[in-house]
């Protein structure tokens, strides 16, 4: 019995209609699983995103006159690069998430005939549920509307919104293609070679000083010209651009189904290799804590999405700092972004590392506080390692730091890691989820919840990063230490509170029973 529609037998319209209808059905299914409180939070969150999007469009446009168009010339020059940067972000996000997030986890979807097109369209729908995507989109909209001003704003913003959608669909298409390559023979070697070539090309451009020339020739300038055409009343130009972008969007959105089908049909070689490979046993652990930590470390570094995510997190912000030649006062913001991203890989639902083994682990005779401490240690060390990698890359072009700058960056890394660990463990105990982190597309919590987590973590860590950015400008390094001590104490206090909650048998039983599935 055929469960999937075929392009040749049913026609493309029927296939697409079914794919779209199935996405709607899956979204309804996911929504039905939410409790009343979660639905209320979802409505509030959606309203907030919509409100902030409108604000990102309208407020900068209205500020143009009061600010007397200050720095408009500089901003116009960088807008094509901003548009291009957004596309790069969507590509990286899609690649690092193995083609895109799952609308329905793979193990739950096996009973349903979910087509590759539905998987692709679902991933496309979920792509904006990412704080990096949202912030970049708002920055793109706000910067452009500030440059253009309020005249014909509604029309001017149409090409921008279309570009955001086009870039996202493009990222998805590339992401699936990359995932298909990764799942092929020698996939890891092929994809790593591609990444190495692209990285080497990027480094070459930066070191050769040709980045600006290249960005100035970016075709994304047409997006700005289309938006500006509306402001200037050049309606034919605007209309043609809108139609082209709209057509491109439909084309890319549908074309993404082809590499998605190709990728999803291929075996998950990396996952299978990890699962079937021989693991040389280490010596017997010397303490309870060491034994617990060893198992947790194995759970992290043997998971494809976690390995890949941590590598991307460690390298990408550092690469951006390297390319942008960030100064030390701005480098202080990066550890927060890295720590937030690291927590979103597994930390916000830390006990999911144990998966179905959580019940067995909890049946072992060990103080619950030791089990808790093991999770704290592994999460903290992962965030510190990724943060250190980022800082090391940023340091290449940031020059020799002053003592205040060095202290600020190092303490910012430690403080945000502690802050993120404390927050993540609290969420892990309060709201556990049963998830299988086997697939590169898996997330430790449902996509909507992840969006909320990422927004809150990004807001918190960015504020701390900005505070340390301020201390890096101080004359004395002790200013950073003075800021760090109370923040670390606060995180420690929160951690102790969560450890006490975890030690309570009823709370612990709820967590382990939930993550065990």
């Amino acid at each position, binding site marked *: 019995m055929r469960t999937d529609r075929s392009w040749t037998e049913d026609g493309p319209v029927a296939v697409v209609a079914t794919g779209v209808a199935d996405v709607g059905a899956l979204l309804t299914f996911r929504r039905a699983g939410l409790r009343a409180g979660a639905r209320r939070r979802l409505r509030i969150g959606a309203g907030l995103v919509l409100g902030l999007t409108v604000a990102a469009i309208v407020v900068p446009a209205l500020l143009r006159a009061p600010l007397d168009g200050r720095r408009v010339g500089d901003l116009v020059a960088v807008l094509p690069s901003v548009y291009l940067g957004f596309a790069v972000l969507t590509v990286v996000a899609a690649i690092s998430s193995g083609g895109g997030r799952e609308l329905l986890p793979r193990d739950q979807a096996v009973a349903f005939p979910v087509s590759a097109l539905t998987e692709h369209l679902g991933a496309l729908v979920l792509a904006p549920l990412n704080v990096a995507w949202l912030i970049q989109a708002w920055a793109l909209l706000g910067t452009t509307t500030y440059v253009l001003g309020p005249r014909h704003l509604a029309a001017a913003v149409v090409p921008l919104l279309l570009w955001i959608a086009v870039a996202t669909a493009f990222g998805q298409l590339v992401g699936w293609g990359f995932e298909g390559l990764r799942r092929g023979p020698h996939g890891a070697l092929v994809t790593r070679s591609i990444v190495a070539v692209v990285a080497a090309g990027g480094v070459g451009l930066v070191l050769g000083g040709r980045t600006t020339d290249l960005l100035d020739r970016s075709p994304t300038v047409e997006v700005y010209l289309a938006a500006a055409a509306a402001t200037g009343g050049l309606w034919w130009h605007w209309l043609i651009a809108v139609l082209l972008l709209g057509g491109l969007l439909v084309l890319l959105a549908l074309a993404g189904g082809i590499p998605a089908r190709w990728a999803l049909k291929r075996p998950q070689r990396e996952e299978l290799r990890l699962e079937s490979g*021989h693991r040389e046993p280490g010596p017997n652990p010397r303490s309870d804590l060491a034994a617990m930590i060893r198992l947790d470390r194995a759970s992290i570094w043997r998971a494809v999405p976690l390995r890949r995510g941590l590598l991307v997190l460690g390298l990408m912000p550092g690469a951006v700092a390297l390319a942008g030649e960030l100064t030390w006062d701005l480098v202080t913001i990066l550890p927060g972004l890295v720590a937030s991203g690291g927590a979103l890989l597994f930390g916000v639902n830390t006990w999911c590392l144990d998966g179905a083994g959580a019940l067995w682990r909890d049946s072992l005779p060990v103080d619950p506080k030791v089990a808790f401490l093991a999770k704290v240690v592994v999460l903290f060390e992962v965030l510190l390692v990724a943060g250190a990698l980022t800082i090391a890359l940023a340091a290449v072009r940031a020059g020799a730091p002053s003592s205040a700058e060095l202290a600020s960056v190092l303490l910012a890394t430690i403080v945000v890691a502690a802050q993120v660990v404390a927050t993540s463990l609290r969420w892990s105990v309060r709201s556990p989820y049963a998830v299988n982190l086997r697939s590169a597309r898996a997330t430790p919590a449902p996509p909507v919840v992840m969006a909320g987590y990422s927004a809150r973590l990004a807001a918190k860590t960015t504020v701390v990063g900005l505070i340390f950015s301020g201390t890096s400008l101080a004359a004395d390094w002790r200013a950073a230490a003075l800021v760090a001590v109370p923040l670390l104490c606060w995180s420690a206090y929160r951690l102790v509170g969560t450890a006490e909650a975890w030690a309570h048998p009823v709370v612990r039983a709820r967590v382990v029973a939930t993550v065990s599935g």
Partner: protein
Amino acid sequence: MGDIKVRGLRVRFGTVEAVRGIDVTAYGGRATALLGRNGAGKSTTMRVLAGVVPPTAGTVVVDGIDVVADPLRTKRRTGYCPDVGGLVPRATPWEHLQLAARLRRLEDWEDRGRDLLERFELGDAAHRVTGGFSHGMGRRLSVVLAAFHEPPVLLLDEPFDGVDPLGVDATQQVIREAKARGAAVLVSTHLRDLAVEACEDALVLRGGSAVAGMDAAELVGEAGARAYRSLLD
């Protein structure tokens, strides 16, 4: 050695009462089958005995230890095979044994660990992560982990589920050995025939309550099957 005494056990999850006043008595050197339909309260009872889920009410004494007063000592005295999964997906069987041996303070455990893995035909998979295991392999390893430290109380929740005949034989052998050394064994299962083969006593649960306690022999054959079915409805 290894007696289990449960009186008036109640377990509530929010508004749902999973266990509604169950009494269980199991003695060292004997195996007791916990039988019943899905949702009867078997697994929740096992989790309470393993010290993983705290009881809402009632007294639970395992090998002379009150599980509420001293859950850590209870966990030292029990070996638990959970009903679902029970394995850390990205750790190997050997790493599971290493963790269990460390936390249970076992010395020179390696030979016994190897022997158990071989008996359950997991020797070749000892150093592969369990995420790639079949369901049956996972069940067999869970039984190994429960029996590894020769506990006075052995709690096996659905140990035969999806397990091949050789794995079933190995599990039955583990149960016989546990009884021979005086351990109390509690086996929760849907498979009446296997339960009858392994156990001397049986307790049938329905809707979170115990509806009958009997000699397992009473559940043998067609007559036993009819008697069992009548207790389920």
